[in-house]
């Protein structure tokens, strides 16, 4: 069964303390891996799509990487405004646009 697992479930960091979030997946055929940010009461906000192992993408303090079994979202010198739930989702190569989501990692950055 296709599955996406994110860890940790929750992460507390001090402002400036860098860390990484993990998204591991077991799927029959990966077309793409998506990262989203979600603030309370809002819809997921698109961050990155990664399509092949070895690919990396960056946006401000965030950097996403992809291997054949997992993806990491690295947060460098986070600020309190980076506090949110980060969601990982995979899309299979079967023709449908369906995304399979993980449970998310809730990040809290304290000043």
């Amino acid at each position, binding site marked *: 069964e296709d599955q996406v697992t994110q860890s940790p479930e929750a992460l507390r960091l001090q402002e400036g303390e860098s860390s990484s979030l993990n998204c591991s997946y077991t799927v029959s055929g990966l077309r793409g891996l998506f990262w989203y940010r979600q603030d309370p009461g809002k819809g997921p906000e698109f961050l990155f799509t990664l399509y092949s192992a070895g690919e990396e993408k960056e946006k401000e303090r965030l950097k996403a990487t992809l291997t054949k079994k997992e993806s990491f979202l690295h947060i460098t010198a986070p600020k309190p405004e980076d506090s949110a739930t980060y969601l990982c989702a995979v899309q299979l190569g079967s023709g*449908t*646009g369906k*995304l399979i989501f993980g449970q998310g990692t809730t990040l809290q950055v304290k000043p």
Partner: protein
Amino acid sequence: EAGVTQFPSHSVIEKGQTVTLRCDPISGHDNLYWYRRVMGKEIKFLLHFVKESKQDESGMPNNRFLAERTGGTYSTLKVQPAELEDSGVYFCASSQTVQGAQYFGPGTRLLVL
């Protein structure tokens, strides 16, 4: 450019009633998706439209749920009759291509009492 919009933002109904949710995708996006998140669970796929055609409806839970996209623009998701377990947040998303980024709306929070 306007993002994905959803209406209503909240809905509280009694078990057995009917509710219709609406989604307006980003202009020009042929692909439209419905997802939902029930309490404590991950976001789950419901269905995928390409223009007005249902490309994949494998996530629709049962025949109480009916999605339409007449004319390939906005979409509606009707729940009839609603059950308690239908409570959750219903998200709509749209994308330009199937493999491209999906942009989500703010969601409709449905509570069935």
